[in-house]
């Protein structure tokens, strides 16, 4: 028991230290690397909080994909860094900010310490109703059955974000390919890795999706893995990023949401409500939604990292 306490204590101290360092360090590149480290440490914290699904998501998206995104950005912004840094606010505003941030922290700490005991929880209700979905993973049950609308809207969020990113395309390049052209180095290590890893990654992604019904995992984690494999192949120069005007690409982007909506509406005549599943068929339908969504999520995440088109088709 004491070992556990020691572990939790060190982890928390480490997380806070890395967070402070990420904020304080002058070099932005270092800050981004700090953030990647922070994401991985945070995933450990999630495991300690018995939220393995969240840990996987945090490690894959919070730590992994966000870091790739930020590293790419920081390299491109390097030339403007010193100019922007010169604008650091004066001592008074820093003090005010510290007071504000400090009081928010104090208020939150107070609330955390006074949270009711025993804690209110929906776990019993989830446990009582999860049988109707025949899922073993309660989190997947919440995401795809009880609170399916949130998950549906989240898929819409991803589409909106991608549309918003694409708005930033310079007019002449509309319909072009996102990201720079990556040269393939046939004998390079990266090309080797990009040939070796994706088959493995795809297997793992399908596995993560499949077990997500009963164990930690699901479409987001699997989709992120696929996105990472795709990005790896693109950055190694093995495949090209597709032009954003491609019809198949558009179709694949909305596939998950369309399947979700279709099954949702099928629930009206078959199960009596939008987003309800017919008795006994919940699990296969949910897996169908998850499989379609995984593809759309993978493509969307990958394209979000690549950014708006930068060259012609």
């Amino acid at each position: 028991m004491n070992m556990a306490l020691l572990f939790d204590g060190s982890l928390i101290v480490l997380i806070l230290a890395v967070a402070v360092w990420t904020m304080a360090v002058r070099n932005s590149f270092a800050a981004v690397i700090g953030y990647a480290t922070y994401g991985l440490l945070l995933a450990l914290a999630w495991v300690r909080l018995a939220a393995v699904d969240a840990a996987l998501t945090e490690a894959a998206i919070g730590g992994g994909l966000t870091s790739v995104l930020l590293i790419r950005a920081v390299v491109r912004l390097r030339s403007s860094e010193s100019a922007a840094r010169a604008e650091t606010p004066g001592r008074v505003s820093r003090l005010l900010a510290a007071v504000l941030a400090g009081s928010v922290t104090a208020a939150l700490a107070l609330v955390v310490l006074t949270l009711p005991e025993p804690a209110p929880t929906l776990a019993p209700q989830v446990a009582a109703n999860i049988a109707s979905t025949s899922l073993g993973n309660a989190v997947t049950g919440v995401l795809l059955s009880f609170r399916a609308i949130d998950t549906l809207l989240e898929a819409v969020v991803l589409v909106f974000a991608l549309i918003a990113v694409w708005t930033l395309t310079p007019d002449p390049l509309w319909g072009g390919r996102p990201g720079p052209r990556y040269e393939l180095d046939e004998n390079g290590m990266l090309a080797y890795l990009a040939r070796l890893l994706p088959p493995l990654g795809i297997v793992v992604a399908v596995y993560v999706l499949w077990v997500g019904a009963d164990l930690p995992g699901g479409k987001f984690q699997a989709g992120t893995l696929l996105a990472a494999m795709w990005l790896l192949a693109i950055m190694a120069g093995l495949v090209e990023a597709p032009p954003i005007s491609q019809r198949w690409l558009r179709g694949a982007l909305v596939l998950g949401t369309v399947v979700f909506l279709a099954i949702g509406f099928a629930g009206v005549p078959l199960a009596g409500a939008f987003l309800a599943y017919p008795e006994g068929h919940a699990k296969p339908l949910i897996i169908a939604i998850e499989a379609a969504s995984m593809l759309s999520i993978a493509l969307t995440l990958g394209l979000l990292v690549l950014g708006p088109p930068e060259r012609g088709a």
Partner: protein
Amino acid sequence: MSLLLDLWTIVAVTAGVFFFLAGTVGLLRFPDTLTRLHALTKADNLGLGLVVLGLLPRVGSPLAGLKLICVWLLVLLAGATASQLIARAVRRSGPPV
């Protein structure tokens, strides 16, 4: 028997952690990118290998053991690629800021 296994786990994991520690110290203290990379990859690959070896007797099923070994191999692969890329970037464009 179980005492022996326990001892093996303790020794191997401790040794592994030591290599991690050494690698991290190297990362923080060595003067330039290449030597830092050297310290990091050498020590971490070995460290993780020892930790995995130490944990192998404790897994419940052969499948779980296989997963552990896969983790080690994947980290080896990723580490080797990443450090090679970093080293090449350094050789081409000089040390980063």
